């Protein structure tokens, strides 16, 4: 298949449950009509970004003492279950059973250099490839453009529905939601409650048709009144541009009820029970991993329903201070571990075996990513699994421990986006800025420029465009 050719329609999805029960999921949406850009694929894929903070346990030869490699595989080239399992000292070995679906990409650096609050600057550009307009580099710095998940949702989702934006964290009012941007300086708050996300998805599909028609008509009536009110406000000549943007955003958010023709496959009872049980305690810092697991189940549900084509899952707040548990031990703050000292800043007592602890936290994230891949692999299509239709990306705001640099950012991808991306491979992109990786993902899932060409210009206008050839099949 040509790299940019049309992709086959997705007709049906099947969920293979634990007991081998297969549930039919009729095709939910005709995506072709939603592809405003001509010459785009009929059946777009999806991207899920699972974000880890604070860098990873990769080698730092320049540090004192030097830290050995504990993240990446030893050799570039083909990845197999056996080769990965044999490298059990590497965090990525946790994903060995998914080797044939993986694409690990090294040689990608953050497009904009960071100074000041590196966590903010790393995170704000992670999915936007944009700098901040702030002259200060504080935790309040914002990106100057939309994020890729927003762009994908804007072009591929049902009108008005944004990307699914989730976070497993205890908010601290300091670098909380960091990934998703609707536009310049307009960061989207992440939903921290799996129960709310689950209800949002299921609420749309759990209606019988007559109830749905009645509610749709009623909502239409209220929406008409509200739209009239907003139109009246928007026609005023004395609005500031900022207020006009504020009202435009609100106006475009008003949606009439979409009556779905099919039902999503239900999550299994224990999962639903767990989602209900964590409601109210979902911002407990001791349950971050548990919440992340449930968010992952919700993401898989959303993708299987065609609810969204883009999702982000942020694990931990901006400079993740979660106290992770590993093999019975409760670690100090992960942020402290990433600095190798018992402190958030640069001053503190050394943490013993800090890199090994960082590696353990990497493994926790690897296992969460593995759960996501397992869930998506459980949905089968006529040609493969749901995972094959899109791409999942385990990303990090930063590259490594104490320097918190953005060179050689760790990108672990899975899923070929219907054959567009290579899989079963560990490749070197060649020290390219990360906007090129985002371009590659955008194109992989079906976005196109107005003339039908691949998206090669996502992010800030100053950046050199292009895709990452070693990533493409």
């Amino acid at each position: 298949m040509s790299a940019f050719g049309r992709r086959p329609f997705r007709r049906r999805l099947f969920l293979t449950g634990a007991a081998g029960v297969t549930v039919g999921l009729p095709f939910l949406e005709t995506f072709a009509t939603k592809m405003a850009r001509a010459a785009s694929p009929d059946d777009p894929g999806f991207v899920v970004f699972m974000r880890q903070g604070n860098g990873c346990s990769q080698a730092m030869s320049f540090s004192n003492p030097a830290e050995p490699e504990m993240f990446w595989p030893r050799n570039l080239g083909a990845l197999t279950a056996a080769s990965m399992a044999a490298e059990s000292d590497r965090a990525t070995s946790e994903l060995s059973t998914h080797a044939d679906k993986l694409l690990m990409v090294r040689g990608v650096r953050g497009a904009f250099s960071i100074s000041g609050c590196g966590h903010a600057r790393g995170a704000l550009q992670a999915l936007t490839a944009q700098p901040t307009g702030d002259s200060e580099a504080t935790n309040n710095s914002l990106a100057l453009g939309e994020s890729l998940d927003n762009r994908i949702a804007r072009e591929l989702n049902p009108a008005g529905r944004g990307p699914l934006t989730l976070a497993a964290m205890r908010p601290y009012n300091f670098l909380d939601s960091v990934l998703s941007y609707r536009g310049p300086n307009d960061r989207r708050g992440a939903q921290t409650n799996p129960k709310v996300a689950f209800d949002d998805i299921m609420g749309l599909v759990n209606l019988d048709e007559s109830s749905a028609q009645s509610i749709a008509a009623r909502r239409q009536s209220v929406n008409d009144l509200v739209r009239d009110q907003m139109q009246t406000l928007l026609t005023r000549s004395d609005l500031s541009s900022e207020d006009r943007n504020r009202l435009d955003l609100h106006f475009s958010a008003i949606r009439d009820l979409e009556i779905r023709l099919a039902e999503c496959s239900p999550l299994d009872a224990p999962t639903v029970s767990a989602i209900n049980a964590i409601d109210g305690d979902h911002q407990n810092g001791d349950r971050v991993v548990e919440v992340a697991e449930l968010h992952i189940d919700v993401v898989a549900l959303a993708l299987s329903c065609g609810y969204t084509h883009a999702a982000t899952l942020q694990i931990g707040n901006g400079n993740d201070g979660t106290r992770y548990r590993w093999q019975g031990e409760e670690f100090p703050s992960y942020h402290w571990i990433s600095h190798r000292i018992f402190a958030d800043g640069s001053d503190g007592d050394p943490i013993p075996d800090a890199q090994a602890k960082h590696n353990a936290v990497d493994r926790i994230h690897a296992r969460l990513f593995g759960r996501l891949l397992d869930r998506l692999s459980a949905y089968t299509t006529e040609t493969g699994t749901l995972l094959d239709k899109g791409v999942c990306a385990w990303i990090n705001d930063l590259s490594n421990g104490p320097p918190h640099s953005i060179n050689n950012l760790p990108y672990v991808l899975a899923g070929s986006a219907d054959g567009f991306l290579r899989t079963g491979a560990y490749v070197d992109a060649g020290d390219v800025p990360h906007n090129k990786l985002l371009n590659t993902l955008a194109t992989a899932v079906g976005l196109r420029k107005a003339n039908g060409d691949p998206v090669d210009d996502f992010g800030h206008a100053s950046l050199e465009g292009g895709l990452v050839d070693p990533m493409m099949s």
Partner: protein
Amino acid sequence: MLFGCNGMIGDADPNGEVGTSAPRCGRSVCGATGELAAGSAFPRLTHAQWENSVRDLLRLAATPNLSGSFEPDTRLSFFDNNVRALRVSSDLWGNYQAAAETLAEAATADATVLAGLLPSELPSDTVERGRAIARDLGRRAYRRPLSNEELDAHGAVFEQGATYFPDMDPLDGGVRMLLEAFLQSPHFVYRVELGNGQNGDIVQLGDFEIASRLSYMIWNTMPDDELLDAAQRDELNTAEQIAVQAARLLDDPRGEAMLERFHAQLFNWDLYGDLSKDPLEFPLSYGGAGDDMYEEARFFVERVVLEEDGNLAELLTAPYTFVNADLAAIYGLEGAFDDTFSRASFSSAQQPERGGLLTQLGFLASHGGLTASVRRGVFINHRVLCTELPPPPDALPPIPADNGMTMTSRERIEMHTGPGTCGASCHGTFINPVGFAFEGFDGLGQYRTEEFGMPVDASATFEFSDGPVSFDGAKQFNDTIAARIETHDCYTKHWVEYAFGRDTAGSDLDLIQDLGDASLDGLSVKALILRLVQSEEFRVRNGGGS
């Protein structure tokens, strides 16, 4: 712009040079004064304001607690009401819609609640009845009277209740439809300030808009009937008229809640709830200590501001606090204490360094550890003195280990960041001197004179706008900042930010400095709030920028 540490306080002079020799203005809050700062005509209700407004609109006994599942807002300043962060996204719109439907159904299913929403006399004619209900309920939902066109539109929505809720009484169904519409309207979810006329860029707010500005500032909710009635009579457009109503609101329990809300956000009391101390290192620590420390701070602010009619200096220096038996033990207070909180005075002999918010346990314990002096110093510079500090560089080596405990924390911090090191400009000049003043308190906030058997050194010198001042210990430091204009300018700057729900700029500077001068002269916090709401800025909005 380079990221040196210029120590500029407040809004930096864009032409100022970077470096410790950069010129400093003589006031806490600097910058170019001039036009009124641009303000939004559509500040959205915070989630807390939404909860309170629903409670009051529906005349419920308590908030409905539905916003916990709303899309969370991003915090872009110390305060949750900064308009830049308050938008209606696609997700939040869905949240509003679902909540409106839930509330409308619940309210009309409860005969008592429903009765409270209806006018005392209802016309028999269906159309007029719908208009009457819309007029009465709409005045409170939109915090202003509805126009005839609006009454027509809402009356039509009321009449649709019979169609969409065929199983309900037509009146009940009509009210349900109206509530769904009111609660999703931009006139409910925003505090709309379209104004009563414009002169150049200056928009004069109407009486009802001032009523809402006042009510949401002080009560965090919609105006009550008395405030709406005053607006209806055009009695809310002069400084004196506003002051009368503001004083009434401040004397209400909801006014007390504002003082808690403001100080809790400014001093980040939310941090206290996460306190977890090693019981081996701090035997007097206990589960729930952080919550008690929050209560201590809350009681203290209420006493100083409301009961003593105190000022900022007293908030920073008053030699007493409120404790239960557990906190009293940490303070080393003698006397009979139990589970309840009671006032306790500090003894100059037993608690020589205590007095004011910054020597309370919550602040000290939530900024503890080896780097306590750095964390305390940064916090006070940022939030109490409004010093503009850049964030720390990304890559810094850790403080060298001292397993033999041969140095005090201060000595280790100074070796790493003090004069002569690469951290000298920020730490040595601004952060460390402030933080070192609190070296007499350990990680739980307990007073100490020694650390690892070595004497604690809490002396330092800080460069204030009127020159360097030396101090030894927290009490001298607190007395010093309580008498410095930058502290008062900073505090009043935060009040202006909070009152207007936006960043400060332009002519705010004049207001801030006027209030700062008065605060330094001893103006009480309550009087400061009243003076703020009587300002010209409180009655207008900058409508420019279109």
